[in-house]
């Protein structure tokens, strides 16, 4: 069974009395171990799709099943718990919490688990090790470069060993070199650690690294490409 299944998913927004469709009857499957790139022009609905996969937004119609769970029918509370366990989210603007150190930022999702302090420490240092920033654990975000911040964000995303990694334009705010480092890391997570990744991107360099590509336009799927 596919890891992710979207069936006839529609999402529209209401502006005053008008309904504006952002996604129109989209059906997609993603297999476990895929590195899926979502591309499309501005307003094509790709970020919305990502939000739906993360469970931070709900479809107007249709169903979304991830890892056997139909998330579109879960309550808010159950969704939060599900999200904590199964999703790792990487934002374009990193979104690290400025008053927390790198260590504390990565530890954040673990505070929702029942792990002991020592166990949490283990997980955090492992995650930071994977992204190559174990020596910067006590630094604050303002003391890190953009690329380093994003890598800490990635560590935060993988520290709970989630089922699925979602990345929203992860290289959008980085210079070429940092972007390359981040993408290499993502690729490694996918190939070495077998992480399933869905990544929204504009960047053709980023798109290159993906195993599959989906093109969206005006809320509908127009093309699917298999690269690897």
């Amino acid at each position, binding site marked *: 069974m596919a890891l992710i299944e979207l069936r006839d998913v529609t999402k529209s927004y209401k502006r005053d009395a008008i309904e504006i469709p952002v996604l129109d009857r989209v059906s997609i499957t993603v297999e476990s171990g895929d590195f899926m790139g979502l591309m499309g022009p501005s307003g094509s609905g790709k970020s919305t799709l990502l939000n739906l996969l993360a469970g931070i937004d709900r479809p107007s119609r249709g169903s979304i099943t991830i890892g056997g769970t139909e998330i579109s029918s879960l309550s808010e509370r159950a969704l939060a718990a599900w999200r904590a366990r199964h*999703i790792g989210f990487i934002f374009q603007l990193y*979104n690290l*919490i400025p008053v927390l150190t790198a260590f504390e930022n990565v530890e954040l999702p673990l505070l929702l688990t029942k792990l002991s302090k020592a166990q949490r420490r283990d997980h955090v240092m492992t995650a930071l090790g994977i992204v190559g920033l174990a020596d910067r654990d006590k630094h604050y975000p303002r003391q890190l470069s953009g690329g380093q911040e994003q890598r800490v964000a990635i560590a935060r995303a993988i520290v709970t060993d989630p089922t699925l990694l979602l990345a929203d334009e992860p290289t959008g705010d980085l210079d070429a070199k940092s972007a390359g480092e981040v993408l290499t890391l993502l690729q490694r997570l996918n190939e070495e650690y077998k992480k399933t990744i869905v990544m929204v991107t504009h960047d053709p360099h980023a798109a290159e690294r993906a195993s599959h590509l989906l093109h969206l336009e005006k809320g509908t799927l127009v093309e699917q490409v298999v690269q690897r």
Partner: protein
Amino acid sequence: MKFVGLILKSARRSKRRTALTMISVALAVFLFSALRAVLDGFDAVSAASSSTRLVTIRSTSMIFSMPTSHAEIIKSTPDVQDITWASWFGGIYKDPKNFFGQFAVDPESYLRMYPEIALTDPERQAFLEDRTGCIVGDGLVKKYGFKPGDKLTLQVGIPVYGSRDFDFTIRGIYQAKGAAVDNQSMMFHWKYADERSTQKGQIGWVVTKIANPDRATQVASAIDAKFANSPNETKTQTEQAFSASFASMLGNLNLLLGSVALAVVLTTLFVAGNTMAMSVRERTTEIAVMRTLGFPAATIFVLVVGEGLVVSIVGGAAGAALSRLIVNGEALGLTGGFIPAFGVNNGNVAVGLGLSALIGLLAAVIPATMASRLKIVDALRRVA
């Protein structure tokens, strides 16, 4: 309590803002504790007042006197075990501003009836033996540097005592054991005052001791019954009731101080609420990120309220501690005369802390609710 770390770090986000808010709460609690302390001071006098002593005054008002014969008649009332009397002298010590209580008393019985007045035996003897001798409270020693053996001269304030100054010799310094008696008064022989009075044989009030506090009302009625319909009608009540009515003479203190306390709390609420709202608004994205990570809405609510509580309670603790140190009626020279000693006790501190917690809670509730109800996608969209 792994979230405590998060809460504390959040509060450190804007140190200046947190500090300003903490100081506001600190000041509010300081003011509140100080006011409560004054009120409690009055209550303490009432509470410490004896329930086995009755005070008899003229029913029209305390400022009128009664003849000494009243004391004899009162003494014969059943259940009266002991008796003494006193008069208010109301003289001037150098300057009218130097106000302290001056009482013309029947020395032996007065000291016997008020064991709270603590004197050494030699001092007691010296006082009893010297017709122009007096004793002063140790609170006055701090103010005026009185020593045993010093001369003390009072100018007459109330015309009935004539026009010549009264000269006394200080024969002892007393301590006040318990709040029923204050330590800033002076007592001297009634006979000395009576000699110079234009109206002889008059006393201000009579104090009696009864065995059984439960019989207080009956004895009081019995005493007053003896003088009903005479030109010198009396009103007798327990010392406790008497002190309470005395405090109320100053005005409805409870109402006044209660209103001020309310104003203080409201003002601080606005300030603290504003801070919490600002704090939450700045963190919209962060809150959205945490919700994305899976933090339930309820946890977000708790985190924000927790931050409000931490800031308020720390501020409140500082304010309460400061008031405990500074607010002391005697040290500030505000007591003496009508205002009893007051100080911030541990009870007041506890109330102050409770108040600050309440402020923190109320101030944070609405921002916390808004933070927990945030729509994740809207918040994330705002930045990118």
